[in-house]
């Protein structure tokens, strides 16, 4: 059953119905058969995967099972892994071998997980379509002429097509939630500071957060429980973060007494009518489950994208200054002098979207413009945080669409950066405010998946998971599969 959850696979491993080695081989067979169609994986080292699986089976025999024992997890190409290449889907990091594991990767290894390949992504996570990858676009399993979303598009497509049961993503402005929505899976962005950023290649350090991309809510909770926790080596990882009972949060089956905010600014002209209908239906289901739906306002919503496209590029321009051709990464041939080496290496190594963002950031930070752009954006960021704080005085959770549209065709937004930037309109404010957010499937619009986004106060992932689990139990949308990959009768995974 390729479309098993992590929990179902763990049960099969625990009961002896299968082994980690058999499971790894079965997913490798699927990935090898379908990756040519999707380009979801940019690295898939069968030898390493099978060796990890055999070691996991031996560990289970000798010491019993750890929380993720033998479960294959696909890894976005942004996480440093000491084995194999970490390239951030950029030519400037082509053939880079990280000297250490990201903190999250260490936690996965210690929990017994099998690191199952590196997934495709927008270059340096800059994009909402996976089309900026230096290794070519990933495709959406629901319709291969369409984007999988981004930046964690490869992770989302791999899970949706059951080439892996779960994956890791990162989310700076929606990069977990938007591709999860467009592929019909669950994606969780934890509260900023919940998960260590050490060893995750930096894009915008005050916004970046890693999280799980899974087949159901309970699997997201399981992975998040392992990924979370303080890391002394990341100064922005919060030491005394309020604890969450990850798995018990997912036991909620009714929403009695839960107040759900419906922000009027998120249900406006410009969104696909079918998407809107699915989200309204989801809210009706929540009301039937006992929730009170309350109209709220987040008045600075319309400025979130503009603030984000100052703050994220500014931070990116600083973070990406390290790619200078000296210590690692691409260096141009035969540089005339040091400046020629820097400027030519960076021109050759970075793709056009990364250059666009670096230039935007450099401009916003440059002398004479800093106050008008960067400082102003940071002040608007404060107002956006205050909007949420005021809303959460009245409601427990906020529910919105994850994306205003379903997956667009490849190339549709390629020449129009602003249209692509606006596609993240519902997800960006969550990152600016550092809040947790979750996207889950809530139906199809014209045959393509639609995502329902939940937003909670900081550190209240339990509220997100509880509401999402109750909704999931009352509906069957998370069991929808892209027809082209649902080959249950071909044998497939154990």
């Amino acid at each position: 059953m390729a479309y098993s959850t992590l929990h179902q696979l763990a049960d099969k491993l625990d009961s002896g119905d299968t082994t980690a080695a058999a499971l790894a081989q079965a997913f490798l067979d699927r990935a090898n058969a379908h990756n040519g169609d999707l380009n979801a994986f940019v690295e898939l080292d069968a030898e390493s995967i099978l060796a990890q699986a055999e070691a996991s089976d031996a560990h289970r025999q000798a010491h019993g099972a750890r929380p993720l024992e033998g479960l294959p997890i696909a890894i976005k190409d942004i996480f440093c892994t000491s084995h194999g290449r970490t390239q951030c889907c950029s030519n400037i990091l082509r053939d880079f071998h990280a000297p250490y594991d990201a903190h999250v990767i260490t936690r996965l290894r210690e929990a017994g997980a099998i690191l199952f390949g590196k997934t495709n992504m927008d270059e340096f996570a800059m994009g909402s379509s996976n089309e900026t990858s230096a290794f070519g676009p990933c495709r959406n399993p629901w319709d291969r002429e369409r984007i999988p979303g981004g930046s964690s598009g490869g992770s989302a497509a791999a899970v949706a097509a059951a080439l892996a049961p779960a994956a890791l993503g990162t989310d700076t402005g929606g990069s977990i939630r938007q591709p999860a929505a467009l592929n019909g899976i669950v994606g969780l962005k934890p509260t900023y500071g919940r998960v260590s950023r050490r060893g995750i290649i930096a894009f915008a350090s005050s916004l970046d957060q890693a999280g799980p991309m899974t087949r159901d809510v309970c699997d997201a909770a399981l992975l998040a429980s392992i990924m979370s926790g303080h890391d002394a080596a990341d100064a922005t990882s919060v030491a005394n973060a309020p604890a969450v009972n990850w798995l018990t949060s997912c036991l909620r089956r009714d929403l009695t007494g839960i107040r759900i905010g419906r922000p009027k600014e998120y249900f406006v002209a410009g969104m696909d009518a079918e998407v809107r209908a699915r989200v309204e239906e989801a809210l009706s289901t929540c009301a039937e489950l006992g929730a009170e739906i309350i109209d709220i306002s987040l008045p600075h919503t319309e400025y979130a994208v503009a603030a984000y496209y100052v703050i994220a590029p500014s931070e990116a321009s600083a973070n990406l200054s390290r790619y200078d051709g000296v210590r690692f990464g691409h260096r141009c041939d035969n540089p005339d002098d040091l400046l020629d080496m820097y400027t030519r290496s960076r021109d050759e190594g970075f793709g056009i979207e990364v250059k666009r963002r670096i230039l935007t950031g450099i401009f916003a930070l440059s002398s004479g413009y800093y106050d008008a752009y960067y400082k102003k954006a940071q002040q608007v960021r404060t107002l956006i945080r205050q909007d949420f704080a005021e809303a959460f005085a009245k409601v427990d959770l906020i529910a919105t669409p994850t994306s205003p549209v379903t997956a667009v065709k490849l190339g549709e937004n390629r020449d129009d950066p602003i249209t692509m930037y606006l596609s993240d309109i519902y997800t960006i404010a969550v990152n600016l405010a550092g809040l947790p957010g979750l996207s889950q499937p809530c139906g199809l619009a014209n045959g393509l998946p639609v995502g329902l986004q939940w937003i909670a106060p900081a550190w209240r992932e339990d509220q997100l998971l509880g509401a999402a689990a109750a909704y999931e139990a009352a509906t069957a949308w998370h069991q929808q599969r892209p027809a082209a990959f649902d080959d249950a009768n071909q044998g497939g995974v154990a």
Partner: protein
Amino acid sequence: MNIDVNKVASLARIRLTDAESAELGPQLSNILSYIDKLQQVDTAGVDATAHPHDAAMPLRPDVVTNANRREALLSNAPNIDSGLFVVPKVIE
């Protein structure tokens, strides 16, 4: 707004080809026009947010935590010699 894209690119230490300058110049102007929307917001007296949480930066004891990893850290360098990174001559 009219942006001198080559000046911005030189601050970013990126040498743009002529084709890239022609593409990125107008796009950068469009992006900045969109961002100018921020000027509509009254932010008088509003503090700037640099980080989502107000937690103070933690301090750690000033002790060595890493083993010597010189070989591993040099292994990705484009050009090394005697344990050093080699770059084009800087001083004549």
